């Protein structure tokens, strides 16, 4: 018995293929269902009568049909009657999966399933990049933005004169010997007007705000991902 029906090839009872054309599988399928017109059906019938291969295909189609019929569950026979409550009900009846008892988790699952993992990863990478940038540039916290020069130096302005300062200056020795006037200018010791260039730059204020926001968003995404995971596990348990 042949296992594959090859359109265009005929298989005899001896298993030898001849160049005689067999109808395509779809034509045999249509013939099986009685969906061919009379002339075409007669042609196929005449061919099938002398073709073991096509007969085998038709036998298989019969077998599949019977298998499908005997394996289909017996349909319910309970009577259906809609009540006024049924037709007033706005909640969809179609709920094949038992609802999760955790309402917030379910809501989050529905809304954000495809995006939470990706967003969390992107936010985490951004945050790592920013923090790494801060560490490399020697920045040490809010209020003291990155320096325009390398190392732990900072720029201050005393009476309009920009001065390069070191880490020690900011730690308490501000304005002492460690301070170096820039471009050969001399610091005015009598001046009380001292301001940090980095503190006055609004860009770095926004940078800090952005960082803080990113941290909040990342935390939110992590919580969402955890709730979502818990919700999925709960739903799986309910289905089981």
């Amino acid at each position, binding site marked *: 018995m042949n296992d594959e029906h090859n359109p265009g090839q005929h298989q005899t009872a001896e298993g030898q293929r001849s160049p005689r054309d067999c109808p395509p599988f779809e034509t045999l399928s249509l013939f099986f269902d009685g969906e061919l017109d009379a002339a075409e059906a007669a042609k196929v019938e005449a061919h099938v009568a002398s073709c073991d291969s096509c007969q085998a295909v038709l036998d298989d189609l019969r077998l599949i049909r019977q298998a499908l019929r005997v394996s289909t569950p017996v349909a319910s026979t309970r*009577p259906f009657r809609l009540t006024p409550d049924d037709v007033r009900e706005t909640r969809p009846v179609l709920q094949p999966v038992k609802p999760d008892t955790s309402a917030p988790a379910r809501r989050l699952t529905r809304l954000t399933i495809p995006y939470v993992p990706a967003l969390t990863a992107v936010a985490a990478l951004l945050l790592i990049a920013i923090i790494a940038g801060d560490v490399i540039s020697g920045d040490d916290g809010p209020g003291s933005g990155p320096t325009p020069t390398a190392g732990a130096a900072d720029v201050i302005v005393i009476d309009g004169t920009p001065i390069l300062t070191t880490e020690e200056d900011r730690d308490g020795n501000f304005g002492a010997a460690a301070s170096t006037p820039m471009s050969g200018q001399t610091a005015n010791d009598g001046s009380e007007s001292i301001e940090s260039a980095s503190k006055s730059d609004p860009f770095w204020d926004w940078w800090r705000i952005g960082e803080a926001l990113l941290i909040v968003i990342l935390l939110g995404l992590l919580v969402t991902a955890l709730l979502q995971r818990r919700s999925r596990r709960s739903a799986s348990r309910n289905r089981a």
Partner: protein
Amino acid sequence: MPKLRRIESRQDGQPGNDGTGSPSEPPTDGELLARAVDGDLDAFNEFVERHQRAVIALCTGILRDASLAEDVAQDAFIRAWKNLPSFQGESARSWLLRIATNRCLDLLRQRNRQATDSLDAQIVESEPRWTTQMPSESPEAEAERVELNDRLEAALADLPDDQRIALVMADVLGYDYLDVAELTGAAMGTVKSRISRARARLRSALLADTASREHFERYVRP
């Protein structure tokens, strides 16, 4: 002539189809739906009772789960009630079966989304069901039957939804191609192709060798 239309003509073609039937004749589908549009729930329930076997058989065949099919059928009846204003006086039975088909498709899509979202969701895909009763079969024979059933259900589950639905309508429910096209909203050529492809795939999955074929023959034709 398509089977659905034949059935329809038996119900809608009776005297009184024009709304002036004698009191002794049962009302036609059109008359029942006309009363239902005016809020007559009893008339709608009579219409449901008339067609519920076809609807449930359709849902059971597509979903392969009798209990789930009941839920979807109930949902389809409620949808039909709510969509009564959109009923255009076409074939009432086809209209109802189309609603049920769409509800089954909605459920299958929902399942597919869950399955792709979580591997766990695939557990709910199907349970072994084989309705052939074999009271005297041995434990080995029963195990073999269950295994064949699992293979059949797995092969069916592997089919695309549209192919599975078309095949079930043709092979299990006995609808002709015109009915399948009408209920699924597909063109006739598409229906032919879907049924043929579904059969080819099942054939290569289940009857790939002589031993498999003999096994199936033994259990399908006991």
